[in-house]
């Protein structure tokens, strides 16, 4: 009895549980702040996912063309890196750049390493940033800190001498963290933004030794071989802290701290191109295209209902289901939504609607030759499934080759066309589920005894 119940109703269970999950994923955060007899509810919706290392805040990631932002292409100089170490260097380059942008606190960046015509390039897209030059300063600087100690003088012009510095053992690796502080000055007279460097224990020892041995001399702090500051050491410093002051604005101090904290780039990079994508264009256009999309969807549903009556309603339900699942997948995977991505979505919606039309048409054909509606439904499905299968396989082939999941070098490994392929592929798979599985079981349910 129970097993036959499961046999009959598992599709309904699957469909309803997926419906429940996708609704949970898509509920926006609504603040309630009301007390009930069973406890206080602060808010519902806006849920996130967390299993161990896997974490998602379930917000829809918008691409550069939608939210606006900066796009910077860097070409790394790998000439001094051994052939075998190149891959490692590029990977850590990517990590560090990602890390820097993340610490910058804007939306998640999109960092891609590209290989073409014997050249490596790093594409950095930072959504939501409206100052491409600042973004460039942030990601494009090597940010290698080094320290030098005064060692005699050199004459740069007649009568002009500057101190000469010799390198010390202290490097970026000895730094634990960098923080932004307002430097009070010795007498508390100034109040300028500065970066405080805290050394780790090894670093503190070396720093203490250096400052002890060289009291009265100048200590130079270099950033990428340029002297930032070269103060005179007044006394031995045992705390393991150093301040970098200078003509920093608060913003510059923040960026420098981010650069130091995320580590130096393993190789120097050169700016290849930079581009600012206006956010206003994106925003207004996206709002309009969503509006246009909704009106279009409504028209499609009206057309389907007028044309196929009850069947049309069923396809509207499975279409809504399709929307819920797709958006949930975008949030969970996550997929960055770009305009080409929306194109892929539109095509796959078209294919989903077409699956329904194919099924309805062939079911109608079958109803002409048989009296039993349930038999007509299952035969109609059989016939329609063959065309749906072949047509969707072709779509999946295109999505597969364009998306290039195995990262073959001769195919695309970045860029908007890949976004198109991703949404197309997901859309086709989901439309097979909703357009075929869901539609079939709703139809079966209505015609189960007829």
């Amino acid at each position: 009895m129970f097993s036959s119940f499961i046999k009959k109703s598992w599709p309904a269970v699957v469909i309803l549980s997926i419906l429940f999950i996708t609704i949970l994923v898509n509920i926006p955060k609504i603040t309630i702040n009301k007390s009930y007899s069973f406890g206080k509810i602060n808010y519902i919706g806006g849920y996130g996912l967390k299993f161990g290392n896997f974490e998602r805040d379930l917000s829809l990631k918008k691409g550069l063309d939608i939210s606006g932002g900066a796009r910077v292409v860097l070409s790394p100089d790998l000439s001094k890196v051994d052939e075998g170490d190149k891959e490692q260097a590029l990977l850590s380059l990517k990590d560090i750049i990602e890390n820097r942008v993340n610490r910058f606190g804007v939306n998640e960046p999109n960092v891609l390493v590209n290989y073409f015509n014997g050249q490596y390039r790093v594409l950095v897209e930072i959504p939501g940033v409206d100052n491409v030059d600042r973004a460039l300063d942030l990601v494009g600087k090597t940010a290698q800190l080094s320290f030098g100690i005064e060692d005699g003088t050199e004459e740069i012009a007649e009568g002009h001498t500057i101190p000469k510095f010799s390198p010390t053992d202290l490097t970026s690796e000895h730094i634990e963290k960098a923080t932004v502080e307002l430097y009070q000055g010795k007498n508390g007279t100034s109040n300028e933004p500065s970066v405080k460097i805290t050394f780790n224990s090894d670093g503190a020892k070396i720093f203490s030794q250096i400052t002890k041995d060289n009291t009265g001399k100048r200590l130079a702090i270099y950033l990428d071989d340029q002297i930032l500051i070269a103060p005179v050491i007044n006394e031995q410093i045992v705390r393991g802290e150093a301040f970098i002051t200078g003509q920093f604005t608060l913003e510059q101090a923040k960026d420098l701290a981010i650069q130091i904290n995320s580590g130096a780039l393993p190789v120097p990079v050169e700016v290849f191109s930079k581009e600012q994508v206006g956010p206003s264009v994106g925003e207004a256009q996206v709002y309009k295209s969503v509006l246009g999309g909704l009106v279009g969807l409504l028209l499609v549903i009206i057309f389907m209902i007028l044309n196929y009556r009850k069947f049309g309603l069923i396809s509207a339900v499975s279409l809504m289901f399709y929307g819920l699942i797709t958006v949930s997948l975008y949030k969970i995977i996550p997929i960055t939504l770009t305009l080409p991505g929306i194109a892929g979505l539109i095509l796959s919606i078209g294919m989903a609607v077409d699956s329904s039309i194919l099924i309805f048409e062939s079911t109608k054909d079958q109803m002409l030759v048989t009296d039993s509606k349930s038999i007509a439904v299952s035969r109609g499905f059989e016939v329609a499934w063959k065309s749906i299968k072949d047509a969707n396989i072709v779509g999946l082939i295109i999505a597969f080759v364009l998306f290039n999941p195995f990262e073959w070098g001769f195919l695309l490994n970045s860029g908007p066309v890949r976004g198109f392929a991703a949404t197309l592929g997901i859309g086709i798979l989901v439309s097979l589920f909703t357009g075929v599985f869901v539609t079939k079981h709703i139809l079966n349910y209505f015609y189960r005894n007829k």
Partner: protein
Amino acid sequence: MNILKYRYVPYALSSLLILFALFNIVRFGFSLSTEFTGGSELTFKSSLSVGDVNKNLDQSLDYEFKLRTQDDIYVFTTNKDLSENEVENLRNILNKDPNFVEENLSVVKAVIGQELIYKTFIAVGISILVIFVFIAYSFKSVLASSSAILAMIHDTLILLGLFAFFGEVATAKIDLLFVTALLTVLSFSLYDTIVIFDRVRENYKKTSGGYYEVLNLSVRQTMVRSINNSITSILALYSLALFVSGSLFWFALALLIGVVLGTYSSPMVAVPIFYDLQRLTKKLPKKYKRKKPNKKKKKKEHKDKVVV
């Protein structure tokens, strides 16, 4: 409805369209966006007329540029990647109009876009090859896959030609969005053809008729579905095109034209080509022919089953 009898009508129409497309492509070329050519592009709004803006710029700039407009949106392009100073200079000139609003500025070097285009071409080539093999295998006919691919090339070529034309007379540009639209149209075209060929395969098994009757019957049977399907796509895309502007408008328009072309080409181009290829190959040596005896046997089996 007898598609094959009147197939010279779509042949003539398609030939005209392709000639028109080729003419446009050769005559005007493509107006590629800066993504592909490199250079700088500034999109802005201004209340001045095109002539005035053009005159202002022409007087002060020492490099070549193009100014295009659609409604109140102006697009300034040059194939020079402008320096900071040059951008500042450009803004100063445009700022003479108090209603000047900068919408988007991009300064791009060409290599990235060329790489994308190059790799997209390779990817499309590979996709077509795989799809060719898949259709040939699935329908047991190289002719079927050839005609499906030919119809697809027909659609993309005409769309390219139209956009070469729109690029000349309006602000349409071949950008990455257009490339994705082209990919969409390409998929849609194949999709539509396969649905018809699938019906052909079924009918070929079921009925005793020759290809002439089977193809005609299949086109008739899939016509309603084909038209309904494009109506839904057209409804969705038309409302999208109505709302948006700029590159998104051209994107929606490309898809819209693509849907119409795809719906037209599957029954009117792919099917007649398939029929004519079938006819032509019958004059070829034996090994190119379909194995007839086997088919006849199968046909009879199914003929008995078909009665429901």
